[in-house]
């Protein structure tokens, strides 16, 4: 079923707010015929039981669904959002091995000889894959020169909107890996503007938006962790296991029955 549970996450250090993330509130849940593991502690010890909630008729299901004791949906939703919160922690607090696939564009068509852009794209791929980011300087110069020919009013121009969009995206990628974030942001913004002009391709807009976020996070990471020594990193704790496994979470009192949603939304 479609269930809506908004959640907001904030990370602070020494009182300073470093970021706010609104989690996706739209959840797909199921009510009935689900399995729940519970544990009860008593003086005699701990009892663990696995319960399957099953309803044999629509009427039984409806009664259970409307019962004020029905916490199944809320519980499922909270667990999903806590899992999402853990993912935010992994992304924002830990070091992660990442893989990126980036398309480096070159011109194609009969209006001009695009060989120079083809060579620039090949050289840029070699530079990116070899982490030789200084070698991106030459492709950058070529793409900037070609962008000077951009004619937004003429589809037949050598650098029409489609070609310009590809070149702006190339420049955003190259500048991001060279650490020139203002330029990277400027070009990804222009690529997005062109992607939102005329026939829109949602996959393309999503890809560009994701890279825009990548640029912002890379800049933030360099600003806040520029001088750390990453030569001897340690394996980070598994948040989901620590919060999820009862043997591990017994001493971690992290759940509070207080309403702070609006307060946190207002304080971003």
């Amino acid at each position, binding site marked *: 079923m479609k269930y809506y549970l908004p959640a907001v996450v904030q990370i602070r250090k020494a009182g300073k707010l470093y970021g706010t993330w609104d989690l996706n509130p739209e959840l797909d849940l199921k009510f009935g015929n689900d399995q729940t593991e519970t544990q009860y502690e008593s003086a005699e010890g701990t009892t663990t039981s696995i319960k399957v909630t099953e309803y044999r008729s629509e009427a039984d299901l409806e009664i259970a669904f409307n019962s004020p004791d029905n916490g199944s949906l809320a519980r499922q939703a909270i667990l999903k959002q806590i899992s999402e919160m853990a993912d935010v922690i992994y992304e924002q607090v830990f070091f992660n091995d990442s893989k990126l696939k980036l398309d480096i564009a070159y011109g194609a068509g009969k209006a001009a000889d695009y060989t120079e852009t083809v060579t620039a794209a090949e050289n840029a*791929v070699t530079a990116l894959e070899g982490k030789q980011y200084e070698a991106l300087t030459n492709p950058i110069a070529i793409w900037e020169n070609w962008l000077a020919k951009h004619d937004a009013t003429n589809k037949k121009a050598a650098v029409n909107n489609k070609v310009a969009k590809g070149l702006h995206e190339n420049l955003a990628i190259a500048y991001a890996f060279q650490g020139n974030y203002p330029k990277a942001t400027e070009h990804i913004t222009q690529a997005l503007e062109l992607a939102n002009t005329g026939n829109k391709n949602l996959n393309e807009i999503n890809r560009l938006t994701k890279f825009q976020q990548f640029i912002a996070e890379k800049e933030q990471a360099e600003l806040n962790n520029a001088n750390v020594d990453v030569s001897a990193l340690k394996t980070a704790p598994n948040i989901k296991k620590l919060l999820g496994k009862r043997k591990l979470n017994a001493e971690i009192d992290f759940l509070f*029955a207080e309403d*702070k949603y609006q307060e946190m939304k207002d304080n971003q």
Partner: protein
Amino acid sequence: MTRLLLLFGAILLSTLSFAQNTKANTAEIDFKKSPTIPVEGLKTLGIQVYTADMPFNKDTLRFYLNNLDMMMSDAEQAGKIKSESLEEFSIVGGEGDVTVNMALGMPLVVAKELKTSSCMGRKSECTQYY
């Protein structure tokens, strides 16, 4: 009429052949993604989840949290996703050197669909909402 259509097709084709576009080469990059939060001196990571009026508190929800462990993706379960930190640190409830706060808003059932299928582990039928 046929001549007109052929003429129109030829004009369209010639227009398309002049429309410039892009092709692309793909770069595959492996790199270490750094945290956006300053992590130097991080010894404790505090977590505070505010559950508002949900029918749980820290004692009751904790009973169900093993389901969180089970909800991890296959890659996570197999330990294929490995995160790293600058130093070893511990997770605490409440405030830490870095504190993560999460607050939940008002829940709402948006839409539900009735479905009947075999019960978990039995041949008999159960009804459920999807």
